[in-house]
């Protein structure tokens, strides 16, 4: 029986991972943080993250803020 062609997909280089990349290099992520900040203003004080967004300078820090907000908003993950 003929088999489907299998195409190999190489793995990215280990050096590709750069969570310390400056957020200023990615306007999309910068705005992603701002969008969540706008929603956070509507949350009760006890449910806010307490993270000042001015302190978010890297991609990894942005991801951490976005994670905290997503968990708060997404009920299946335990959100509000």
């Amino acid at each position, binding site marked *: *029986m*003929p*088999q*489907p*062609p*299998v*195409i*190999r*997909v*190489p*793995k*990215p*280089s280990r050096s*590709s*991972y*750069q*969570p310390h*990349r400056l957020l200023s*290099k*990615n*306007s*999309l*992520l910068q*705005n*992603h943080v*701002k*969008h*969540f900040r*706008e*929603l956070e203003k*509507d949350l009760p004080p006890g449910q806010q993250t307490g993270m000042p967004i001015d302190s978010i300078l890297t*991609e*990894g820090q*942005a*991801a*951490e803020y*976005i*994670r905290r*907000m*997503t*968990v708060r*908003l*997404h*009920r*299946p*993950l335990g*959100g509000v």
Partner: protein
Amino acid sequence: MSAGLDNLKHVVVLMMENRSFDHMLGALRAADPRINGLTGNETNPDTTNEPAPVAPLAEFQSQLDPDPDHSFPAVQKQLFFPAAGPPAVPSMQGFVQSYSDVEHNVAHSHKIMYYFAPGKLPVLHTLAQSYALFNGWFASIPGPTVCNRAFAHYGTSFGKVNLDIFYVVEPYQSVYERLLAANRTTKLYYFDPSSSTQEVVNLLKNQPQIFATYQQFLDDCKNGALPDYSFVEPNYSDHPGDDGGEQLASDQHPDHDVQAGEQFIASIYNAIRQNPDLWQSTALLITYDEHGGIYDHVPPPACIPDGFQASLADTGGMPFAFDRLGVRVPAILVSPWIAKATVVPGPEDPANGRVFEHASIPATITQHFIGNYDNRSPREKAAQTFLDLLTDEMRPDADCPSFQLD
């Protein structure tokens, strides 16, 4: 109705980030002249007025750093240089000049013309040559991500051309809300909570039940639990995983690694492909939100106005009525019911060419799963739909590639 359409139960859309058609797929013209890619003779003038040629030198990472400007004003320069904008016809001559505005380095500015050599993108190139490749799929707006992604979700950006959060204007609803109201099933799968959903954070707040993670997508494919319509988002950032490992951004947004995106696309395809029932009842559309400031040679066509006027503060003072499209992006429709190596002609074929944009996504989903539905934007109502590409004949398994991820 074709047998392929008759069998269709699920549509999955995967939207990647910020790469133009020619950058990713332009090389494929050499092997198949029906593909409206690059001849190799295309150039743009640099700031010394020397021609910067296209070249098959694109790399996976570290080449488009800093990020090319793709704000609305920058894209107008890319499209119309040396003119300022309409009524001039897009020249596609301002990409190098625009990249020079970001970093004043003549040699570096030429890299905006680079494209991936044949075979360097095994996933995207294989899918493009195996299923249906669109020669004429354009971003909805000559501008950045958020407003373009809005067209995929709502069929409009509600008058926005920038990255700001936006608010829905009645009577329009997202395609997800329409589906739920019609008792259909739908999910937006984001990668993980640290990446989350892009552009539709308002939906996440107000309709959290329609969201799930990439891992859930994989599980739903395996268990035959995929909804009628799925929208999949890549990972938008490098960040630690829950297990302490490294999650590499897979969106292909410069300067994220393009190979990580290749692996992500392959994983979505394999998840559908490896469930035989799902494979024969699913159509997968892979596309990109916009070009990210990277060169493409096809002038974006005009389109029907959307009923909104953009703020002059956002357009750099240029009036814009959402009456012309953004830069061309890759788009591939995958299904075993698609004839091998289908090329859907675009503007290069005045007789048979078809023009698609992101409003084609909600237009297609609404038409297939709901039927008549009036409360849609003018752009969505006028948008081409794409499920007519499914044929009466299902290709044998041996004719459909699989991917093995290293």
